[in-house]
């Protein structure tokens, strides 16, 4: 804009010199016209900017990695006094990796609605948000600008692969006590029955409906997860600061989670959330997807002792603790193994550089380029 202002000043100076040195009426007319033009332009801008608005939209809610999608920037303008120029600054950022891309879009003179589509694709998973940072209406000569209201932001989830991991799933994945707690007299006498059942409530996912019991009871009965502490498998997901690492972590978790879903094995997930740990259980695809979306939306947390926090608050007997992390020191691992109460512990080091790997039975390095091979070593 400053360039345009300087150019206009130069033109005005030329007009002024023309007025001074050319004695005719023409020079007066031209000089006055040059003085009035910005006024006319500004008045038009004043009449038009109030009716302008900008919002962002996404073409899809969720996509897979490398699948094309687009963000649509929709600008609105009055038909009678369209805004001469709309300059929009948008920011597209990935919550998982922290990368950000800024763009400056310029909509020319238009009436009604104008849409500018930004095609994108992401090689890594995460939650990509398109935020309109700034929208300004400019006059015809680009001398003046006024703010234009901004309405919405848009987001797209780039999901990791849902292909179940080629990990081995054994019958011992359940706690003995859990199996003992199965009620022989429960309807259906299903050894895999959960701890408790209850009546269906609106909002319960369909995957929780105990169909046998429901058929027998004549009403919908849902399986109750029971307390999170009694889940047999627990995931502790800790993200890093690098996008590649986090992508590998998400990919690993996703594939393991959907493996469990495939086998109908419930699990619980813990993740760092501000100064404490968040947690949610899943035993169906929908719940797993929800957890995945939550994990993808988490920004990189500040460094605090996730493992220690987990041990203090949530360390209860479980069959298998799967710790997915980008880094783990030998001391932490030793502490984890000595003080832990899990039947089994598996540490998946995702995206770690080779020189930082720890050699231990429970530690499995997971490389993004050999994900299948690495996950095949996992035994659930």
């Amino acid at each position, binding site marked *: 804009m400053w360039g345009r202002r300087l150019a206009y000043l130069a033109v005005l100076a030329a007009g002024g010199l023309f*007025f*001074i*040195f050319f*004695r*005719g*009426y*023409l020079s*007066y*007319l*031209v000089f*006055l*016209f040059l003085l*009035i*033009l910005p006024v*006319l*332009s500004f008045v*038009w801008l004043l009449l038009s900017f109030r009716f302008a608005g900008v919002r962002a939209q996404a*073409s899809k809610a969720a996509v897979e990695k490398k699948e*094309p999608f687009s963000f649509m*920037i929709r600008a609105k303008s009055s*038909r*009678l*006094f*369209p805004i*001469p*120029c709309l300059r929009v600054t948008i920011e*597209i950022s*990935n919550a998982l*990796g922290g*990368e950000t*891309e*800024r*763009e*400056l*879009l*310029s*909509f*020319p*003179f*238009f*009436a*009604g*609605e*104008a*849409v*500018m*589509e*930004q*095609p*994108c694709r*992401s*090689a*890594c998973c*995460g939650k*990509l948000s398109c935020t309109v940072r700034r929208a300004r209406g400019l006059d*015809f*000569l680009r001398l003046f600008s006024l703010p234009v209201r901004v309405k919405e932001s848009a987001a797209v989830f780039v999901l990791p692969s849902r292909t179940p991991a080629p990990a081995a799933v054994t019958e011992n994945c359940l706690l003995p006590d859990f199996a003992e707690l199965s009620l022989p007299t429960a309807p259906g006498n299903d050894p895999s029955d959960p701890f408790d059942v209850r009546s269906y409530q609106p909002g319960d996912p369909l995957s929780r409906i105990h169909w046998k019991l429901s058929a027998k009871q004549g009403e919908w009965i849902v399986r109750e997860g029971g307390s999170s502490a009694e889940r047999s498998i627990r995931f502790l997901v800790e993200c890093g600061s690098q*996008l*590649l690492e986090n*992508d590998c972590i998400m990919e690993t978790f996703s594939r393991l989670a959907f493996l469990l879903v495939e086998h109908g094995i419930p699990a619980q997930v813990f993740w760092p959330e501000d100064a404490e740990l968040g947690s949610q259980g899943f035993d169906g695809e929908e719940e797993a997807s929800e957890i995945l979306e939550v994990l993808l939306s988490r920004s990189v947390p500040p460094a605090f002792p996730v493992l220690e926090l987990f041990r203090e608050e949530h360390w209860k007997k479980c069959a298998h603790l799967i710790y997915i992390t980008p880094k783990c020191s030998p001391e932490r691992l030793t502490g984890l193994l000595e003080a832990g109460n899990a039947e089994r512990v598996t540490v998946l080091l995702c995206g770690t550089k080779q020189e930082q790997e720890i050699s231990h039975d429970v530690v499995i390095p997971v490389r993004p380029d050999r994900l299948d091979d690495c996950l095949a070593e996992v035994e659930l």
Partner: protein
Amino acid sequence: MKWKKRHETYSALFMQAPEVRQGGGHGWGSLLIGCLLLFLGLAGTAWAFVSSFALPAHLPLLLALAACLSLLLTAGYRWRFADILLFLLSAALCLFLWRFQGEIVQGFLCTVNCITKAYTENSPFEFPTFLVEEMTDLERQRCCTMFVGACMVPVAGALSWAVFRRRSFVCAFVFTFPFLLAALMFTITPNLCAMAMLLVFWAGLAFLPSRARCCVGKQNFSSGIQRLPAASFLMLTLMAGVVSLLLFAIPAEEYQRPEQVDDLRVSLETTGQRLVEQVTNSLLFSGSRDQANLENQTDGFSGKTVLEVQSSRGTDLRLRGFTGSVYNGSSWSQLPQDEYALLEESLAGTSPLNLSGFLGKDLFSSIRVSVRNVGASREILYAPYALATTPEEFPEADYVHDSFLRGDWLTAPLEYSMDCLDVQSSFLYGDRELAAEAYLQCVQTNDPSSQELPFPEGLYYLDGSEYAREEMRKLYCTPVPDDLLAALPEPLHTWMEEETEYSTFVYDHYLDVPEDLKETLLDSFYPGAQSEGLPFDNVISQVELMVSTSATYSLDAPQTPQGEDFIEYFVTESHEGYCVHFASTAVMLLRSMGIPARYVEGFALSWDELEEAGPEGWVEVKDSRSHAWAEAYCPGFGWVPVEATPGGGTVPMVSNETESEPVSSEPEELSSAPEEASSASQPVSSHPVQENSSSLMSYAEQEEEGASPVWQVLLCVLGVILFCALLVLLFLLRRSLREKRYLRLPANRSVALMYRHALGAVRFGSEMEPRLRELAEKAKFSRNGVTEEERREARSLLTQVYGKAAQKLPLWKRVLLFLWKG
């Protein structure tokens, strides 16, 4: 468009160039606005041009032509046959020019004559006109209309490209403003309605944006030309309304320019002049300005030859340039123009510069002086004393009152010849009546050397007393007695009358001296009263001697301190100076004594240089030979040079041997400064002559033969080759631009364009590649669009389509395809 990827850190986000999916306005609305803008631009330009120079063209017809061209070209751009339309228009124009070449030529000549007439009326210059065939007004109008109409076609083509393809204000301004500039240069105002149309046209293009843009990091992307919404009409209407309001609110007839603006203009001009003077020191002696600043250093000489002079007789020759009449303490300037109004009336058309020429070639022999300007300023035409060539004989020169001859920097001749009279100094009586008697005697005896009248004594008193001044006034202002006047034949009779008028003018205007300076000069040079008077020539000699011996010649004269008078400082304190100092002092001293004098700059050539060169030889004059001297007015004779610089050669003034002081022909101090680039003006006679060797070829006169037929044929062939080469270059450029466009645009748009381009070949009989159609459909309709690989594939398929077309088509269709589609 390539996928963008950052290189500094790993980034998983890949983004293509954004695309505008919808927005803008209606296609027809955009076209109508474009058509309207094109009409405004084309009609406004034509109308402005015709009205500026009062061309006898049929304006309504031209406006109708502008409307037709606008509509045609709009249709061409709408239905994508603009290229072929322009080609057809060009062909039609060529046919039209060929068929009506006679009328077009006459129209061109009439137009040029109208333009030169307008220029002549609005400037102090004369412009040549062309002879046209005799024709009636109607025929003239027809010819002019045809010519202007023919000119409008290429302008329309250029403007349509600027409006529809680029929608660029800069391009449109470049194509239209020169027609306006041609008039404005000479303060000619075009029709105001036409100007209003042009203003709305330019403002409309400046206001209406053309493309959507995106900036990502350092990369910029832009879309194609966007359609305009219907509100653009409202905007154009508002602009037209504003212009109309201005025209009606303050009509031209009632417009009065504020005085403050004029004052501002004068002060800006003065400031500009001062800045130019400070920058261009070397212009001090070339007399190319209306003012000579005496404070400038004279170290701007390069030693280059600025003039070549030829004289038919080997006599001392002084070529006069700038003449200064008004002294302001640090510079000389000319008399204000309005001072000459009465004089010019009384002289009834005779230039004061020619008054000596009236003495007649019967009395005095004529010398032919030729000057060739090889490096001097073209604004001064250096002329000798006693110029006999009249303004009618030398139309290229502007005879600036009684000062000098001015040329135009653009049109001044580089070589010119003038006649001057070899006026005998024996006629410097200093008394008009005596001079008239002497002339009469010469006429009666037909022998200029036969006059035997004695020189008067005691006419001129040097002390500046009141008595002296009164006597001087009588000498200058008293006319010749009527009986003597009646006895003089023509043209001497007229000359005497006019000389008296001019002498009175000179006496009234060339005696101004600041009082302080006058006292200083008289005290310095005439401390006591002078009881005796002297003849005129003796006065001149004495002044020359006194001034030249009063100080030392030096090129490194000290700068006059700020606030002090230039001459006073030289006379009372520094006593060092060069020709400028001595000349200025001599002028002021003469004026103090009551003798009208003025300051002159130019070049002085000695008789020996010219004699050695011979009547056919040329003398080279270098810029370091620039010189300044004084000139005093002798009543009954005219201006005579006064050489007050030590060592400066003077025109020999042999008069009364008993009373006259010997002419100081020996230099008091020879300048020892080498004749290098840093030297200022050197005394003429002590200066080694730059001999003009016979190897210097004078310009051969151009033989007025037409070029031989062989040359004509060669020129034609060359012209054709150049034209073909230009065409090829244009096509190659077009192809290159198209390729760049394919790469620059987003992939989907690029593939769509390629498909459209391929359709052009299909129209010529080629077959469309199915895969290309598939890609185009994918680009247009699929959600994901095409990838980079598919874009490259589409490009190669396009080449294949045209390749097949080229193989199948006959030669003439192939050429047409190449011309049309590249």
